[in-house]
């Protein structure tokens, strides 16, 4: 009983590392969950933002490591996911050793295309077991798949399975325990004699150079010819060129011929192993799609679902967020009761606890958004949404899949940016990340509310609208238009992409697995806490220090803030922000707002020394205070409606959110993009406010 490794040598002791490979939507993740249960960990592959999922199966006293490879259609990689899969299978990733055995998960209801990838993997010389998943779906589609016949045709072991119900799991466990009988790689493509000869020529060199048996050498020759770069040795590269030339001599492309030959063979395999019912009932998917992708009803369903997602992030999250807020306050009080007043207490309560609270406060929104994304993705709807929105997003050079991350960013950019993982194209994803924070998130709302309530007169417009409501709407529209404009610009300049492509499968609808969705939500929350949480905590402690030191003996917290480092920076900032209509007090507020936008309101309250015992009253007082604040030098009011509008525009466009910066750093693997984003958004906000304030002054509006 030998198991062949890529080099043709038998491994030392049975199967220890197994990888799950398969097309997206083949039910691979559900099978992974069924095999490993909670014994799994999600991390990141170093250097790329592709989730690495590793689990374990315990078999008696042995533990087998199971790796869930990212979904792929082909090893001729076109996305980061596919690149990772290919590199691991080729043993080219230093962080992940190649598996001893590959479980290739295929959708039994869609065999031809699903089998293409497993055959490529077998060509590398890796032992492959076909997991014939979704047998139930195939049956419903009127397909009878004969696993034994399939195994005979493919020359590979085949295990039928229905992953959501755990069918096939016991068989797989048994198979792993016993190990598998080596199935020598065979080249199976239907080729003409000339093509055969060309491949055999290459295979002889491959076999000689790499010391492989003939069948493995032939398979690897195929892999070489289909462009799955094996980093060939010089002699092999030479033979490869020679073989390619033989194809070219008769005006054929080697890859074309091999892809076609493989499909020709797969068509034959399918005809021998799959029986089709005479009468095939229209599938449920087809009937649902007639409504859900319909020109009118489809859009209505989509808008309804998006409204639900948006509503959920906005309102369902409030309860848990209030609870987290309450817990943080409670913790603060507890510390205040037990630790004597002083720097340590202040550091703990205002720095550490406030920072932890600032991290935890995002959990409800992240969990809710990913719950929906998990459900929509698992059920197959997400692909329909992308199908419908693609034309809209393409207008600015983006992809249908960018829509949901951008929409979620209206609630909060953090989950929105995390949700860009569903976008395969790296540049499209990056552009979406860069513009997502321009969508007006819920943290801007307190600032909008304060400014509008204090300075925008409640006048009626056209009978049914009021000026404050229209102003609020204008903020959202401005943010959205800015996002679209910047996306358009980035796609044309900085992140100019090659021909935009959009080849996406519309998978059959299926009932989402609650277990899978639950594990997905959990892993997302966990990753946010681990990666972004630490940065947010660190920054919030720094900000605390900036507003606390140097100490001021005055009992008035306003005085303390005014003389702190932050206060001094605010004053130093004044000449810079003067052209926007902002004075040094607003400057301090802006520094406070780098922690999170809503902090602007409480910072301003401290600067104006407004007591904060009663929140409603405090806000009222703050409104009065800023309305009546007079600049002692000029004798003019500090705040005018024009200043308020200028400030509103600044808040729409500026990236004042350390959590976003932390998440972008984590999602793009470095500081380059978050810093660029901070720079461009600050420049945009500054320019926007400058234009608004200066034009307004010139026209004499709202001064």
């Amino acid at each position: 009983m030998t198991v062949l490794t890529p080099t043709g040598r038998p491994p030392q002791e049975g199967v220890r590392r197994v990888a799950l490979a398969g097309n997206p939507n083949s039910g691979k993740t559900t099978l992974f969950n069924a095999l490993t249960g909670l014994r799994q960990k999600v991390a990141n592959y170093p250097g790329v933002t592709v989730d690495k999922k590793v689990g374990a199966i315990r078999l008696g006293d042995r533990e087998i490591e199971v790796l869930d490879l990212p979904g792929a259609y082909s090893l001729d990689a076109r996305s980061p996911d596919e690149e990772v899969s290919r590199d691991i299978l080729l043993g080219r990733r230093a962080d992940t050793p190649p598996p001893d055995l590959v479980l290739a998960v295929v959708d039994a209801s869609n065999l031809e295309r699903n089998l293409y990838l497993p055959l490529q993997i077998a060509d590398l010389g890796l032992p492959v077991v076909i997991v014939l998943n979704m047998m139930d779906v195939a049956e419903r589609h009127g397909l009878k798949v004969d696993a034994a016949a399939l195994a005979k045709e493919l020359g590979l072991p085949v295990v039928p399975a229905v992953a959501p119900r755990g069918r096939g799991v016991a068989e797989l466990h048994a198979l792993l325990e016993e190990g598998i009988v080596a199935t020598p790689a065979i080249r199976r493509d239907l080729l003409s004699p000339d093509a055969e000869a060309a491949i055999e020529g290459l295979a002889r060199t491959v076999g000689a150079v790499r010391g492989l048996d003939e069948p493995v050498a032939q398979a690897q020759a195929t892999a070489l010819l289909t462009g799955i770069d094996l980093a060939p040795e010089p002699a092999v590269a030479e033979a490869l060129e020679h073989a390619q030339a033989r194809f070219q001599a008769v005006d054929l492309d080697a890859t074309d011929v091999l892809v076609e030959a493989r499909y020709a063979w797969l068509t034959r395999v399918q005809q021998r192993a799959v029986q089709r019912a005479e009468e095939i009932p229209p599938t449920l998917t087809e009937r649902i799609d007639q409504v859900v992708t319909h020109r009118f009803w489809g859009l209505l369903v989509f808008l309804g679902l998006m409204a639900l997602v948006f509503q959920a992030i906005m309102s369902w999250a409030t309860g848990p967020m209030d609870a987290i807020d309450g817990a943080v306050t409670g913790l603060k009080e507890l510390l205040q009761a037990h630790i004597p007043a002083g720097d340590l207490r202040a550091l703990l309560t205002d720095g550490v606890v406030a920072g932890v609270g600032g991290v935890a406060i995002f959990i409800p929104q992240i969990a809710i958004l990913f719950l929906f994304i998990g459900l929509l993705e698992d059920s197959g709807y997400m692909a329909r949404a992308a199908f419908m929105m693609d034309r809209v997003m393409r207008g600015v050079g983006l992809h249908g899949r960018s829509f949901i991350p951008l929409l979620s960013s209206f609630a909060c950019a953090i989950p929105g940016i995390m949700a860009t993982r569903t976008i395969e194209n790296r540049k499209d994803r990056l552009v979406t990340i860069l513009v997502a924070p321009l969508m007006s998130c819920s943290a801007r709302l307190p600032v909008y509310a304060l400014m509008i309530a204090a300075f925008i007169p409640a006048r009626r417009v056209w009978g049914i609208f009021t000026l404050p409501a229209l102003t609020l709407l204008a903020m959202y529209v401005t943010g959205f238009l800015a996002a679209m404009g910047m996306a358009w610009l980035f796609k044309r300049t900085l992140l100019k992409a090659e021909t935009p492509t959009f080849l996406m499968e519309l998978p059959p609808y299926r009932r989402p697995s609650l277990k899978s969705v639950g594990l997905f939500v959990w892993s997302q929350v966990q990753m946010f806490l681990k990666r972004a949480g630490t940065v947010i905590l660190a920054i919030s402690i720094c900000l605390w220090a900036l507003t606390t030191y140097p100490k001021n003996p005055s009992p008035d917290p306003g005085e303390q803030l005014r003389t702190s480092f932050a206060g001094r920076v605010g004053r130093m900032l004044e000449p810079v922000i003067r052209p926007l209509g902002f004075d040094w007090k607003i400057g301090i507020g802006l520094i406070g707002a780098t922690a999170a936008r809503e902090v602007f309101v409480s910072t301003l309250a401290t600067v104006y020394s407004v007591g904060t015992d009663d929140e409603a009253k405090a806000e009222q007082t703050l409104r009065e205070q800023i309305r009546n604040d007079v600049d002692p030098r000029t004798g003019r009011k500090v705040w005018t409606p024009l200043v308020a509008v200028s400030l509103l525009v600044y808040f729409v466009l500026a990236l004042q959110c350390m959590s976003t910066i932390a998440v972008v750093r984590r999602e793009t693997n470095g500081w380059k993009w978050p810093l660029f984003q901070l720079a461009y958004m600050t420049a945009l906000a500054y320019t926007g406010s400058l234009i608004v304030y200066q034009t307004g002054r010139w026209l004499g509006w709202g001064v």
Partner: protein
Amino acid sequence: MLATKQSASMEITGMDEQRLSSLRPGDRATIGRVEGSGPVRRRLLELGLTPGTPITLVRLAPLRDPMEIRVRGYQLCVRRAEAEAVWVQAEVTVPAPDVAVPVPALAGAGGAPRPLLRLFRPR
């Protein structure tokens, strides 16, 4: 000849070659060739759009682009720009005796799929 057995033995009878992008919902056709070179073309082939493969244009997105096609028993959406490069014969090919053309699951004897609600009949 170096061609595959399938395409070597396949006789294409349909005369009117047209672009995939010019098909209308409900139209059936057979893939002729995929123009151009590079990764997009390669991926189209690897997704099963090889010469001789029957396809059906299922529907267009609400804004008429992208389009949804059924190929080898699954649904794929393709933008018009990519569909331009795919040439098809709107008529069925005559398969060689040993390589029957697979019938897509949904284009079988069942006829047009029953709509969920009569109101929403597709175009």
